């Protein structure tokens, strides 16, 4: 485990591969409530970075600013060097509540990003078909969301984000509405997909175990107003089996250390 303190993590000194997403001096005010205070972060390309913090620390707000869904009060986000002014094709979002259209089948939901871009029906269905298989939902193409379990619904949300072939995937607490057993299976599948898709993942969660298990890098935000408190790079051998990772001493130590750091924010 490597512990990069906030002070040492000044963007230029980070010895990471090139950053896919750069966050510079982001502040966010809601009326007179300060949600985020001068956030500076780099998200390395091809890695999974987690935003972790106590509830109300603004981690979802930061993710939505990166997505271009809400404007920052000041500061700038650059994706592949281009400043963000709104949602763009190089980013895809996975929603906490899945955001599936209840009136559309799994197939139409997964292909929806392509439908909006005007991709022809046969082509977009072929692409959707591939990603439905990749997330393990083959055979469910013609089901409606209410016929699926929570875990399966989020797989649809993930396939929809993959289908538009964005470079950066933004996941807003994707497993929080999924039950514990499905969540574990889903986390394992997610790691396989990170490996397979070679995309940059930014992942918001409030689960320490989830963050340590899935991430190449963990950014810990402090309580409101949200600031970068700590950056941790867990060095866990991911070639080991999922069960071995969960018993790994490095994994357990990292979980413990993050908990010790976060404990003071919990009332």
């Amino acid at each position: 485990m490597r512990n990069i303190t906030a002070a040492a993590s000044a963007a230029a000194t980070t010895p990471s591969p090139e950053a896919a997403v750069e966050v510079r001096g982001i502040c966010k005010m809601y009326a007179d409530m300060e949600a985020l205070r001068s956030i500076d972060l780099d998200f390395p390309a091809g890695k999974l970075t987690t935003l972790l913090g106590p509830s109300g620390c603004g981690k979802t707000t930061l993710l939505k600013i990166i997505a271009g869904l809400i404007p920052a009060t000041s500061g700038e986000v650059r994706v592949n060097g281009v400043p963000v002014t709104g949602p763009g094709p190089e980013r895809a979002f996975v929603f906490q509540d899945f955001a599936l259209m209840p009136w559309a089948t799994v197939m139409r939901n997964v292909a929806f990003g392509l439908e909006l871009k005007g991709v022809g029906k046969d082509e977009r269905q072929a692409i959707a078909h591939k990603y439905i298989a990749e997330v393990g939902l083959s055979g469910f193409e013609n089901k409606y969301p209410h016929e699926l379990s929570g875990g399966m619904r989020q797989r649809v949300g993930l396939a929809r984000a993959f289908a538009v072939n964005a470079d950066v995937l933004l996941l807003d607490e994707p497993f929080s509405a999924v039950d514990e057993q499905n969540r574990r299976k889903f986390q394992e599948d997610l790691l396989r997909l990170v490996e397979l898709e070679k995309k940059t993942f930014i992942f918001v969660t409030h689960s320490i175990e989830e963050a340590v298990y899935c991430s190449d890098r963990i950014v810990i935000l402090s309580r409101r107003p949200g600031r970068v408190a700590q950056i941790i790079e867990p060095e866990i051998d991911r070639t080991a089996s999922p069960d071995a990772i969960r018993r790994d001493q490095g994994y357990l130590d990292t979980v413990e250390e993050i908990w010790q750091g976060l404990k003071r924010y919990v009332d």
Partner: protein
Amino acid sequence: MSAPAHANGSPRAIPGAGASSFWGKLLEHRTALWRAASIGLFFLVWEIAGRIPISFAFPTFLETARAFLTMLFDGSFVAAYAETLQPLVIGIAISAVLGVGLGVLMGLSRFAEWLVAPVFIVLQAAPMAALIPLITFVYGIGLVSKTLAVIMLALPVIALNGYKAVRHVNPSLVDMCRSFQGTWWQRILKIILPDASPIIFAGLRLGLAAGFIGVILAELLITPTGIGDLITYHRSVADYPEMYAAVVSIILVSTLTLSALEAFEVRVLRPEKKKG
């Protein structure tokens, strides 16, 4: 359960399966059965009440049914509905287009809400029957007045439901559409309208029901034509079974129209409800 039954292998499976399929069938049609029973019970109570009789002007169910069939086959219903449906269809069509349009506009724009919503809130609260004589002053006793009566009753509820429907669209779906760079029109046509459609259609159903009230009020209060004429005429000559048959016919037509609208909604806009 006796020992020989066990010797046969599965002791309870066979009779169990038979019984469960019988109960299964019954359960499948249970709601239909209850509905039929409830209507049957209502007719029975009506028949008994007619035979007591509670009033000399209250015909029995069988008398009414006989009058209903006679009027159905001698063409008096056909002629009456040909007239009644004109203001109703025109009025509902105008109310639906205008109401859904204005409602969606109010839902999307604060300015439109501020401009239009108060008018409809007042109109919805106003006792429309009191305004009908006013319409006749301005527009006479023709088709225009009757159509206006339908619109005045149907439009506010359709517009206000459309407005509420759009305001209650799942914000996360709207965000989803934005995050995949949907255009303004795509957002409205592919997300907002389908997501709002259950409440919009609830408004259309209420509007249609209100439209039926409007057209009958108009036909009773302005000039007796169509089905309003049938009711007024048969009352004046004391043909009570015929009068009741006319009333029953309008209830029947309005119920069937509302069911058809519901079936249309499920078929076209919300296919997922067909399966569930």
